[in-house]
């Protein structure tokens, strides 16, 4: 069954039954005190009706956001922009705001907003192909792709290949891709799209852009310091793959749109990487018909998407919660942590990646001179890493204990699992 077509009465009945059973499972899960139930809801629904995702996406304008880092924030930016454009009719928008971004989380969010005609969906890297096949999205935002959770993703190039295959299979029915030109892997993927809006997002993680994804030659850069992915016109001498000119360009902290207007982002969330995310969201919003000014004003009001960058109190300590999950994420986030004492929480549950070897790819040396409290299930691994970085530290694995007794605002950076625990502790 292809989307955007009539679903017969039998199909509708099966979907209704699946949605009903999913809700029951979610309620049971909540009563049992095992979380919001969103995940089990989607799981039950998809088990009873494997076509549910396609049916739920039928007759909707769909925009997907994927990439290694910045998915949740960018999706919140885009959803805010679309919501502002819809005005009083915000019920027309569905958005998986909590970051449940696998098929089951997406299906669960969609089933709770059956009246919506526009969907802005954060999509896990591994299910991009599935959702493209199921839903014929109109827009696909591809932010970046770097080493992350290699225990289950195995190879970055494999993910990129799966995205390329999905776009090739979708052919003329595929999405318009909003692609970050700073990332050679993303540019290589976007080659398969029927139409691309290029965003020179000026992101600067280069360690996974050493060689050409197309031919394997080493990439060279036009940037004076030789770094790749700095908007410096990277190119491959082997096959000619090169950084395309951006329709949108991030430069000097401003976003230049395709009409040549320069916008001061003025975001509530910190970090240059969020200006890059906003540029991608701006491009996607325009594709969905949202004027740039409306979009940007709405994006400026996004302050703590799914708890990221939230300031709250845990016990008696005022904390700012920062999420970082992989070397590229830590490289962006570590410089934001400015307090004299910093708490770093690391775990290796399935959602964090079970191998924490990546700790040695992060430049913790920059924390020298400050006190770090290491927390989380892998606090000891981090403690050993910090010893080798000559950073003074204390190892306090329990999160609440790690924060107890700290005076003044404290920046906390955590991987996914401890981050969710911190959100609970801080009610954000």
């Amino acid at each position: 069954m292809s989307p955007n077509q009539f679903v017969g009465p039998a199909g509708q009945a099966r979907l209704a039954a699946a949605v009903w059973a999913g809700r029951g499972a979610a309620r049971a899960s909540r009563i049992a005190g095992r979380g919001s139930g969103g995940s089990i809801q989607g799981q039950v629904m998809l088990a009873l009706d494997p076509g549910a995702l396609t049916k739920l996406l039928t007759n909707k304008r769909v925009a997907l956001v994927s990439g290694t880092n910045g998915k949740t924030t960018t999706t919140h930016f885009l959803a805010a922009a679309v919501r502002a454009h819809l005005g009083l009719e915000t019920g027309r928008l569905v958005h998986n705001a909590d970051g449940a971004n696998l098929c089951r989380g997406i299906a669960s969010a969609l089933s709770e907003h059956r009246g919506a005609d526009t969907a802005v969906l954060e999509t896990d890297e591994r299910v991009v192909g599935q959702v493209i096949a199921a839903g014929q999205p109109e827009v696909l935002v591809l932010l970046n792709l770097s080493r992350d959770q290699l225990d289950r993703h195995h190879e970055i190039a494999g993910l990129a290949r799966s995205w390329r295959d999905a776009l090739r299979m979708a052919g003329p029915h595929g999405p318009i891709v909003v692609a970050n030109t700073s990332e050679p892997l993303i540019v290589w993927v976007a080659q398969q799209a029927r139409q691309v809006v290029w965003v020179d997002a000026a992101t600067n993680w280069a360690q996974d852009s050493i060689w050409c994804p197309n031919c394997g030659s080493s990439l060279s850069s036009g940037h004076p310091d030789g770094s790749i992915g700095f908007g410096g016109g990277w190119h491959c001498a082997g096959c000619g793959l090169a950084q395309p000119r951006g329709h949108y360009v991030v430069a000097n902290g401003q976003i230049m749109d395709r009409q040549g207007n320069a916008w001061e982002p003025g975001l509530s969330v910190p970090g240059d990487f969020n200006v890059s995310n906003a540029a991608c969201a701006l491009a996607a919003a325009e594709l969905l018909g949202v004027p740039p000014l409306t979009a940007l004003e709405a994006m400026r009001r996004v302050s703590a998407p799914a708890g990221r960058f939230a300031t709250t109190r845990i016990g008696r300590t005022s904390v700012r919660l920062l999420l970082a999950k992989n070397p590229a994420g830590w490289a962006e986030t570590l410089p934001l942590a400015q307090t004299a004492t910093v708490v770093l929480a690391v775990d290796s549950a399935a959602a964090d990646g079970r191998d924490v070897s990546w700790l040695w790819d992060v430049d913790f040396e920059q924390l020298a001179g400050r006190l770090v409290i290491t927390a989380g299930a892998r606090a000891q691994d981090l403690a050993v890493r910090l010893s080798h970085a000559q950073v003074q530290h204390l190892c306090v694995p329990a999160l609440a204990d790690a924060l107890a007794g700290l005076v003044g605002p404290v920046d906390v950076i955590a991987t996914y699992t401890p981050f969710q625990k911190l959100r609970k502790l801080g009610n954000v």
Partner: protein
Amino acid sequence: MTQRSFGQHVEVVVVYQSLLGLYGDRGNATVLMNRLSSRGYNPALTMVEPGDRLPDTGDIYLLGGGEDAAQVSAVHALRADGGLHRAVDRGKAVFAVCAGYQIIGNSFMTSDTGQVIEGLGLLDVTTTRGPERAVGEVLSRWNDHHGEQAWITGFENHSGYTRLGTCAQPLATTDVGVGNCADGTEGAVAGTVIGTYLHGPVLARNPAVADHVLELGLGARLSPLIRPEVDELRRQRCAAARERSWSRRRGALLARKGLTSWARSFLAKPPLNPPTQISQTAQRRRPSFPP
């Protein structure tokens, strides 16, 4: 003889970090540098990229893990360079992890196309594609070594399965994990050349192995270092590996049990494994803590 001379220059060479640096294995160099400094040596770190010539002045050469395409580029560049062979001829140490381990063997296979790529032949090992990717914590026992420090802990993530030829000895005997090819061995050794599948990085978690690599490169004995923080990390990782192995076995047993009852009720066939026998097996397999 311990510590030949205070301030002695030692060169640690990281080979192709951009190609073979996917899993934090650069940490092995950090660990070696710090363990040398702590003993009064004067270590120097040399990072070599494809196109640069490998220095002939190095004492220890380190290779890490990487993806297929990078691994193939690396082996071509290293064969053209010949620097690793010269290092081994000089009696210097080569320590290679994962893709690096496969590279220094006789040959390996790419995981996507199954193409056979000739290796450097520094270790008599041959790598082919395995039945399934090996991912998880590994606990192994270092051969010919004794005591608590003989446990080697690390994390494996590889699709290639490696078989040892007659000229290579296994580095360790696996207690938990797949290791070389689920044959109970992990890694390989020949003279001053060591290969292993373990990330972690492995030398941060296993200081005795780190010192062994240093001693191979220096040709000198080193005094021990006291690092309680690392001892605690080792205790935690050994326990985690054993716990993981136990829960996986329990999971497999439960799955078998589930299948058994399903088979009994639906197919009216005798159970594959009577429940009483399963619980006895479970009892027997309850893990003991590492000594």
